[in-house]
């Protein structure tokens, strides 16, 4: 609880620092904050934008949180997101459910490649997952220029997916799925024996081994679940927002998930709030650029500041 309060305070500090950065652009900090708030939650339109961006952030955030809880540094969310979207596109002809299941499976499989390399050659996930990101990005590039290119063969993009997520007002059903995934992850981590073993492995693998947990199998399962969450994010983004794939499809959601999970202190339910915060920040930053001409890069700046503040707080706490 206390950690979550600190995280919330860190988010506020980040917002304040961000507002102060307005001075550098020659704007009133209060004006900047006002536009940020108005552009992210000030109208039904803005709220829809915030929700739409929060869904992939929530799922990639969960993906990171689950892996980190098990002690695996899965920073391959971007690649798993793309793998999920590619499989989702192929599965879409059999309907939404098949498409999303395919997306989860593909995400899990892509993450499991890193696990396989860990078991086979003891290659660290922190390296293999990030390298798998680049492979996925180029795989997507090849697909949209080659086998999956639109039938008109004019632009490097695919045709629209055969299935679409049902709409919920001006957002899509993915909002419900993401919330369900968050509750499901909480249940898994805190209400099941599997979750206990997973967390024990993350806290102290040697102790977990002595307690009779098969650590490598445990890590493999955590990684697969983590990959499935990121893959689902890719599938939902495809069926709910873009409806087709192109090279810039992933847009950094996989990496942003790391900031989301850290701000949430790796707690699956707090990830919801954290994803909403970053979703709102991105949406507000868009409005900021449209109306005040301040680069929407402030959203990225905000992510960085949040993480730096959290690290600073942790540092102070551990020294005391």
């Amino acid at each position, binding site marked *: 609880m*206390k950690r979550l*309060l*600190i995280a*919330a*305070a860190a988010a*506020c*500090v980040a*917002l*304040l620092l961000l*507002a102060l950065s307005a001075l550098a652009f020659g704007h009133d*900090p*209060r*004006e900047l*904050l*006002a*536009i940020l*708030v*108005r552009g992210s939650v*000030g109208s039904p*339109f803005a709220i829809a*934008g915030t929700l*739409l*961006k929060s869904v992939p952030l929530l799922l990639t955030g969960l993906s990171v949180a689950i892996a980190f809880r098990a002690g695996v540094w899965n920073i391959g969310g971007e690649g798993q997101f793309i793998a999920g979207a590619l499989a989702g596109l192929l599965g879409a002809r059999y309907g939404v459910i098949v498409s999303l299941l395919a997306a989860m499976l593909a995400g899990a499989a892509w993450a499991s490649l890193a696990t396989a390399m860990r078991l086979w050659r003891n290659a660290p996930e922190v390296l293999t997952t990030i390298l798998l990101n680049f492979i996925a990005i180029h795989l997507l590039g090849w697909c949209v220029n080659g086998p999956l290119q639109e039938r*008109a*063969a*004019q*632009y*490097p*993009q695919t045709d*629209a997916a055969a299935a679409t997520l049902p709409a919920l007002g001006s957002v899509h059903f993915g909002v419900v799925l993401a919330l369900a995934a968050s509750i499901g992850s909480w249940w898994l981590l805190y209400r099941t024996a599997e979750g206990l073993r997973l967390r024990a492995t993350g806290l102290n693998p040697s102790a977990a081994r002595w307690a009779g947990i098969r650590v490598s199998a445990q890590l493999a399962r955590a990684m697969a679940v983590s990959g499935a969450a990121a893959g689902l994010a890719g599938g939902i*983004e495809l069926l709910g*927002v*873009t*409806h*087709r794939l*192109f090279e*810039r*499809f992933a*847009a*950094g*959601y996989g990496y942003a998930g790391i900031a989301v999970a850290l701000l949430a202190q790796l707690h699956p339910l707090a990830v919801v709030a954290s994803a909403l915060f970053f979703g709102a920040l*991105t*949406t507000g930053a*868009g*409005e900021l*650029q*449209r*109306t005040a*001409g301040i*680069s*929407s*890069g402030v*959203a*990225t700046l905000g992510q960085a500041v949040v993480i730096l503040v959290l690290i600073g707080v942790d540092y102070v706490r551990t020294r005391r």
Partner: protein
Amino acid sequence: MKRAVLAFAFLVLACAKPETSAPANTSTAPAATRGAASTSKPFRVGLLTPGSINDGGWNAIAWEGMQRIQKELGAEISHQETKTPAEFDEGFRSYGAKKFDLAFGHGFEFQDAAKKAGAEYPDTMFVTTSGSTVARNVAPMRFRLEEATYLLGVIAARESKTGKAGLVGGINLPSIASTFEAFKAGAHSVNPKFEVKEIYTGNFDDLGAAKVATLSLINAGADFVFHQANEAGRGVFQACSERKIRCFGSNKNQNDLAPDVIVASAVLDVPGAFVRMAKTVRDKQFKPEIQMFGMANGIVTLEWNEKLKGTLAPATVAEVERLEAQIKQGALQVPLGF
């Protein structure tokens, strides 16, 4: 713990203060624009780019176009760098909701979002840079650089001594292959047996690869080289300068980069097209059709290197100028690759 709660409460208050002032701000801003609308509504233009406008390339030229729109038409301009696909919709719809007159999406990937927003906001025109989606208030801009590269092909075929020319491309994209097809068509219109070989290096920034590709074309007998390799094009010029082989510039007027060998450049004025498009919308002349920009409206030009123009056969220059006039009048249709 207590201290943390206190600090948190303080921060919440600090954050909350501007939030309460937000509605006051929002209520004044639209009122101001509404007041302005009743007298003389400003012409407003928005732009969505897929990346940073400081990239010195694709996005920078769009921003240059916007700045010219601001200066030449006195328009209010707005821009958003869309980081995620969800922002394509959001950006367009936001411009529509604010009753912008025109919103550009700088890339084919904005077509779906333009179509959706176009149906929702009929008073705003949505224009994508390249694409094929057309609706009542939605249209793509397309550029016919081919009209200039066709003429380059004519020059090469008329002036070549070996009967061979080389083409160096970055990535084999439809838009690039199309300019090469036009080059070949121009060359073959002079001499059906003229040989044109092309090499794609696979990227737009490897100068070394472009240079090696150029040298291999020269070694195979090419005595004219044209490139479509963006940054890597400098490698082409290096190779041509070393071997004293004549070549052509592309997209920008590159004649000064290697004034001893570049005979002419096929130039595409994208910012000019943005201004032209904005004028069309301002004057209520917008038509829902693919917006073609070529030699006829001065967006595509053939820029001679005056220093080398005199070394060509006068008949070649005269012929190219005759064909140029025909293209401008629409009497000569340059074949497009797609």
